[in-house]
């Protein structure tokens, strides 16, 4: 991931705009980008995206000995990969998530105990920041919480003497992790230490360098507060932000629960599609006739007006779902008559000149660059 260079002009522009209560992506000051959650085929794999910020989370578990201080509790470990060499932001995100998820006791760790003092389940949440367009923490938190809610561990029976057996999924149903509540991080970038901006983009984050992160659950309980960056704030602001965060958290929790329910229904019907449901663009028909559909796809991309209530945008996703099967490449033999760019490459082994091939590849890459413009 590359860090763009922030010019003084950009900085001044953003600051001035915020002072006039304007944001460069037309959002209101307390408006969030679109949220989407996709579950994988494996239990506990999730991609969450907030605008263009994308985070992958996966949960895994294994049996090990408990800590001596907590002999009848399982443990949870959270690991965050940023994909860049920078160490600091990674530590910050990890610690905030640890506080939010582990220290708010949202997981019933006692239910993860197999034999007290001997064997417990250890949970591990691996979070990978795929794309950082700002507000990684919100997205990572949503991904982590939904992954935990989605995860199923194998059942396990203890048979005295500290012996126990782990059942395969065929023998006994997998069991979900008990979550008491879903803590949701809400990140407000602070401008001048006074103006809070919901869901900052990377540009806004880099301009202000200070943010207030509140973790709240649906019961209006505050699970963690974190003031990052170099900043001074007032208690009044914290109070104000926490009220707004509580609203937001309620919506997010509902959204996560809906998505989980949808996934459960899909799985029951044997239609779990995994991450393929997140794939939209293979829908684009090759003959470019169905412009309407493209427009629709584009619309969901550009529609930045998502008020809190409109966060889900799930209508469009469902639509894509139904189309995906038809238009993805399946086992049916495809017709031989295709002769696109790439095909030419395959057919040109005898043209030994590298330059020749390169030209061809060049055109294809050019195409893709242009197409990038259209898509984004």
């Amino acid at each position: 991931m590359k860090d763009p260079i922030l010019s003084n002009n950009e900085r001044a522009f953003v600051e001035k705009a915020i002072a006039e209560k304007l944001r460069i992506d037309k959002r209101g000051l307390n408006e969030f980008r679109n949220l989407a959650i996709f579950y994988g085929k494996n239990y506990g794999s999730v991609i969450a995206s907030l605008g263009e910020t994308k985070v992958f989370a996966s949960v895994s578990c294994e049996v090990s000995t408990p800590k001596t201080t907590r002999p009848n509790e399982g443990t949870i470990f959270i690991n965050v990969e940023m994909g860049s060499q920078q160490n600091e932001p990674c530590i910050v995100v990890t610690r905030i998530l640890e506080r939010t998820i582990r220290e708010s006791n949202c997981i019933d760790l006692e239910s993860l105990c197999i034999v007290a003092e001997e064997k417990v389940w250890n949970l591990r949440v691996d979070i990978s920041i795929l794309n950082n367009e700002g507000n990684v923490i919100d997205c990572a938190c949503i991904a982590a919480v939904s992954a935990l809610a989605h995860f199923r561990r194998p059942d396990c029976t203890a048979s005295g003497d500290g012996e126990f057996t782990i059942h395969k999924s065929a023998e006994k149903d997998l069991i979900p992790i008990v979550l008491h509540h879903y803590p949701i991080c809400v990140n407000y970038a602070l401008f001048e230490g006074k103006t809070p901006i919901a869901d900052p983009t990377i540009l806004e984050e880099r301009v202000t360098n200070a943010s207030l992160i509140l973790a709240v659950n649906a019961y209006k309980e505050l699970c963690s507060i974190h003031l990052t960056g170099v900043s001074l704030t007032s208690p009044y602001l914290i109070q104000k932000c926490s009220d707004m965060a509580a609203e937001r958290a309620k919506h997010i929790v509902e959204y996560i629960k809906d998505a989980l329910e949808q996934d459960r229904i899909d799985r029951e019907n044997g239609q779990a599609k995994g991450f393929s449901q997140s794939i939209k663009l293979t829908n684009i028909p090759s003959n470019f006739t169905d412009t309407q559909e493209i427009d629709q796809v584009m619309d969901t991309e550009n529609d930045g007006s998502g008020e809190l209530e409109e966060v889900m945008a799930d209508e469009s996703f469902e639509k894509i779902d139904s189309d995906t099967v038809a238009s993805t490449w399946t086992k049916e033999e495809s017709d031989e008559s295709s002769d696109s760019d790439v095909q030419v490459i395959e057919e040109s082994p005898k043209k030994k000149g590298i330059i020749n091939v390169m030209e061809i590849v060049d055109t294809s890459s050019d195409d893709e660059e242009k197409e990038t413009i259209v898509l984004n």
Partner: protein
Amino acid sequence: MVQDLLSAQGLRMDGRRHNELRQIQCKLGVLESELFTHKNRCDGSAYMLHGNTKVIASISGPKHPSKSSGKKDESFIFNVRVKFATFSKNGERQKVLKNSKKLGEIEINLKNIFKSVILVEKYEKSQLDLNIEVLQHDGGSEICTIVNTATLALIDAGICMKEYVCACTASLTNDGLALLDVSHLEEICGGPTLTIAALPRIGDHEQSVAFIELSQKFYLKDLNKIFDCCQLGCEKIRTILDEAIRGNAYEHVNSDLTSN
């Protein structure tokens, strides 16, 4: 479940009242600063005992940035290093921690806190190193003591700052009473703990907050109460720090300094 943190008589486990701080002792200039004549010497230091926590902080700089300190684009380089002595905790000996997340977090937090109060523009092109050694602690939130000690050390080194930074914790009983300065025992017993580092200004109720940390959860409606308690604690700590600083200063001052 949360054990009751307050007895029927209104006393806490260690006999304090709900709005009482633990014992605090502090001293500035505990390490000799004129020992060396090269730039890596210690320019300011402080020691603090707060409850069971003992911390030494030392400052080196502001000085010409060392070549290895890397980042050229930053005009003011502020390095923070925190270490826990291997014998600092009761019970088992602590392993020597290197690059641990916990230390990393404390270091980042300290960096952010002090960068927001040091008058950075006065230290362009220079480097300032803050070293913290925790000699003894009981496992509680030592960040408070570290922040307070670091403030003293920075003042001892004569670094320009806007205000003292004071850090304090507060917790909540089952009955919703805010408790000041949480001890480790109280923390284990399961109350939520809010830690803030604030700039308690003289005669100004609205404090600026430079750092907040919360462990465990509580209802939003209680936020105000617990926050107020923390702020009160910060003011009290400010008074203690101020006393120590003035005490130290009067030792220094003689009638000559003004006639200079």
